[in-house]
């Protein structure tokens, strides 16, 4: 659901850019499409992270993993999801001061639009926080599945998949 929304925002950005190109050709400069697409990119990236995570799309090098038995694979998967959750928490925590400073100083973009930066930065930061929340939940779920020795479900949850399995 979130991913579809993110995709629609991206589509909106395509339309905005094309409108900008067309308007420019007839001599009306409305500007700012460039700036806005930067904010869209930041939002698409941060809010897309959790979707890519649940789809197991974040690339992993599984040369060794493939040669292990089920239990070994499960251990590597657990390690990977813990590393991911830990990192995403650090990113979310360290990104907060960016928004905090923006709010304190009332920072606006250094552009003719003078966009109040708290707007794009709140959207961006909340995407990373959501990513941290999702990955932490996955750690807990994986641990509980492993305790129950339900290795197959754990693999479905946090295993590794290749690009084209996803396409199908």
């Amino acid at each position: 659901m979130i991913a579809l929304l993110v995709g629609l925002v991206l589509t909106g950005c395509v339309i905005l850019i094309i409108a900008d190109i067309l308007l420019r050709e007839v001599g009306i400069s409305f500007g700012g499409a460039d700036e806005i697409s930067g904010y869209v990119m930041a939002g698409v990236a941060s809010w897309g992270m959790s979707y890519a995570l649940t789809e197991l799309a974040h690339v992993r090098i599984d040369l060794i993993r493939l040669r292990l038995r089920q239990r070994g694979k499960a251990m590597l998967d657990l390690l990977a999801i813990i590393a991911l959750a830990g990192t995403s928490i650090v990113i979310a925590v360290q990104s907060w001061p960016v928004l905090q400073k923006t709010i304190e100083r009332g920072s606006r973009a250094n552009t003719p639009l003078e966009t109040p930066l708290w707007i794009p930065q709140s959207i961006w930061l909340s995407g990373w926080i959501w990513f941290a929340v999702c990955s932490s939940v996955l750690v807990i779920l994986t641990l509980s599945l492993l305790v129950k020795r339900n290795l197959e479900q754990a693999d479905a949850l946090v295993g590794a998949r290749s690009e084209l399995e996803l396409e199908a």
Partner: protein
Amino acid sequence: MIFTVTASLLGLLALSIPVGIVLFLLGFGVDQLFSPFPLLRGLGQVVWSSSNSSTLIAIPFFVLLGEILVRGGIAERTYEALDKWFSWLPGGLIHANIGTATMFSATSGSSVATAATVATVAMPQAEKLGYDPKLFSGAIAAGGTLGIMIPPSINLIVYGFLTETSIPRLFLAGLIPGLLMAVAFMMVTAILCKIKPTLGGTSRSFTWSERIGSLQHLLPIVVLFLVVIGSIYAGWATPTESAAVGVAIAMLIAAFNRGVSREMIERCLYGTVRITAMIMLVIIGAYFLNFTLTAAGMGRELKDLLTGLNFSPMGTLMVVILLYIVLGFFIETLSLMVATIPIIVPIMTGMGFDKVWFGILLIVLIEMALITPPVGLNLYVVQGARKSGRLSDVMLGVIPFVLVMLAMIALLVAVPSVALFLPDIL
């Protein structure tokens, strides 16, 4: 420091921790071990300013473009048409793989997207017609890499962005080397299949009327190429904006072919968001690692290493090429570019090498990195499409094409005008 970081990189990757996360972890490590400064405090700002980029938005646009071409049925028809034209050559359908990859390269900015597009439509044919899986899949993996050499190209946009080089000039410079490589890929395939006919599948031939009739299916791709590239050179659109134009035109073409439905659009968007997030995690991780490495003095270490050798410009160039080949085995390509370009390119231009030319040389090296194990994204993309067989088949299959790339590097060094001819006359 360089040694420690490389060793840890390999170790963490081997543990199958996601590549983007590995880069962040290395950044944390560099901060802890090699820097007296609290680099972690810069993390948020680096994440924000690396992703708040109107240049990088070309990535989701090109991915979306590829999704529309596959799901709108355009990719499949292109492949069938090229099959009719090329299947008489020794190696048959393999040439259609390379040809389709070349055509898609001309509309897509990404090698992974190109390889995924071609693999999706080509793989089902391989088993049906009895091709050698090694060469067949190797050709797709290698052909896909052309996506970043033949314009448009995300990697050239990133190179132009990092080095303040004109992106349209870079695009022009990539065209001849890209086409030369496509032709060389086909020649190598034909020669190999001539020597050992079992590599190619059943030879087939089509009538001229069938061939002429198939031309209409090549039209959409040609139109897309002309619009995307044309809008840049006509001065209507910047390279990034042209990606948005490509998405709109692809959508129109798909609609014209009645390939558009609500479900199709939804699947395109889901796919785009997934692949974009996957790429962005790696890019943002690479930015953070680069931030920590530079702050900890890697630039100086690398520079001292290169200048300390006291080699002639040509000698230094050889060391740089070797460095990229070795790093290319292990490091994801965009991260490799972001981390090294700000350090290497000033050294090279300082020695009198042309910035546009070096960009093209770098792209060949990056293409090679895409198909050299253990970290070669295209290998995994193609293996994923096969759904059976061993990854090592694909790895063996790309060897002839890696050799072509090495020859291309030699040619670029010997005759720089291969790249510079077009941008200089236009």
